[in-house]
């Protein structure tokens, strides 16, 4: 219950600055529209019905969903954690009878609730995943949940570099660029030559490209299993990284300002 309050607070924070939120959504919508019109022109002038197995209508859908996912998979916890370390307020958080990582999860969830609702509605109403049998539906939901956890853990692992770095703002454009290029936000990674097919199993692609294809019904049960396997592998790798760096980080943490 104590974590639920964190979730509510995070949601309220998102909704508190409604003007900023609306303008942010508007600019995201403009960027999506630009990419959509460009891809429609590519379909039109190439004379192709499908590109990398994706029809023009599905491409429009792909670009909208992948951009909603980019909003869900935010890198905000990195900057929050950096603020705590730099100000020394991490000491206060550590003294509280809470688990910082669990709190971080609920905060991450609360902040993204408006976007998660959109993603959930699209999944429930338009996506074919619940029309392909119980096993497919359950596997899809499991993959979504595991990917969500994996991405948050990865962001948490990256945030731990705040123990050693004074400024972490440079990570913001880097992570945006990585999601744009490796996450399939600019274009589906499937349009790249076969030599780059391994790229679809990077964590950004698992969160962006693969979850979007899942929603489009483009992943078979086998592909869901492989994608899930890679997601679990990344989760384990990131958990090990967190375990190693957290203890070292805490030892180097000076608690300045506390």
């Amino acid at each position, binding site marked *: 219950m104590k974590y639920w309050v964190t979730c509510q607070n995070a949601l309220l924070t998102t909704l508190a*600055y409604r*003007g*900023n939120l609306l*303008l*942010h959504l508007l*600019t995201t919508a*403009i*960027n999506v*529209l*630009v990419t959509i*019109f*460009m*891809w*429609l*022109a*590519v379909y039109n*002038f*190439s*004379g*192709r019905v499908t*590109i990398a197995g994706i029809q023009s209508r599905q491409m429009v859908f792909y670009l909208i969903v992948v951009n909603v996912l980019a909003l869900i998979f935010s890198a905000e916890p990195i900057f929050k954690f950096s603020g705590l370390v730099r100000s020394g307020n991490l000491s206060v958080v550590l003294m509280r009878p809470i688990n910082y990582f669990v709190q971080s999860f609920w905060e991450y969830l609360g902040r993204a609730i408006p976007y998660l609702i959109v993603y959930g509605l699209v999944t429930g109403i338009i996506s074919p995943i619940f029309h392909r049998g119980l096993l497919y539906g359950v596997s899809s939901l499991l993959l979504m949940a595991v990917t969500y956890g994996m991405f948050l853990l990865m962001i948490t692992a990256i945030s731990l570099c705040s123990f050693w770095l004074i*400024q972490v703002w*440079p990570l913001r*454009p*880097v992570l945006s*660029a990585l999601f*744009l*290029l490796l996450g399939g936000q*600019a*274009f589906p990674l499937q*349009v*790249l030559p076969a030599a780059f097919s391994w790229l679809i199993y990077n964590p950004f692609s698992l969160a962006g490209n693969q979850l979007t294809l899942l929603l489009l019904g483009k992943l078979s049960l086998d592909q869901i299993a492989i994608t899930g396997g890679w997601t679990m592998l990344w989760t384990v790798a990131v958990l090990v990284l967190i375990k190693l760096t957290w203890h070292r980080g805490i030892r180097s943490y000076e608690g300045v300002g506390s």
Partner: protein
Amino acid sequence: MFKIYRVLITQSLAETMTYRVTTILTALFGVLFYVIDLITGGVYFSFTPTIYGWNFLDYLNLITTANLISYAYQFLFVAAHEDLTDQILSGNLDYSLLRPVNAYWFHACYRVDFPSLVTLILTSIIEAVILTRLHPTPLNLLFYLMAVIVGIAFVFALNQIMVTLAFWVDGLTALNGIPEDLMTASARPAKIYPRVIQQLFLWVIPSLAITNVPAQFGHNHPTWLLLWITLVTGLLLILSYIEWQRGLLKYVSAN
């Protein structure tokens, strides 16, 4: 006035040298997003040789010109604009208002952003190479340069209008990002958009014209739209100046 600007540039350079790592990182990120644009363009044109009559080289010319305009604006004005919002909100304009200089231009030119100079030079070199491939006539090249200068003034005027809104609106930080997003969305051939959007952003808020017009001169397709964007930019500059004067009437000092 030039002497004052020289002092402000010297101060900016001193600040840049203090934050060397930040300078290098900012330059790197500028290049990073330009490279993503190039890769994305490469992906588009791997499926078709032309889109609405634009081949890959024309497209490169367009996005490089759009980046050139953005980086030139960033180099000349972005640091000053970031500072101006803070100065207005914290009520610290008094010192510049008391000086025997034009406060509008003093704040517009208060700082230059040297990290952007690196990306500006890099983009200029790439654009020069593209133009040597496109062979514009000397007259078209001259109009290309004029259109780029008008483009920089247009982006400046849009940002100045948004930043000066801080006299009335507090906390709506996303407003300041609108011109940048608008220019990013405009770095595409105008014809990919539906006719209504084309007309809106070619004639009413001519951000599409700002990027497309110089690119058209670059590949020898002169257009009268240059006259229109010059006129609109002039009007926006006047509007931003009027807004500044009105804003000063709303200004509350915190000193």
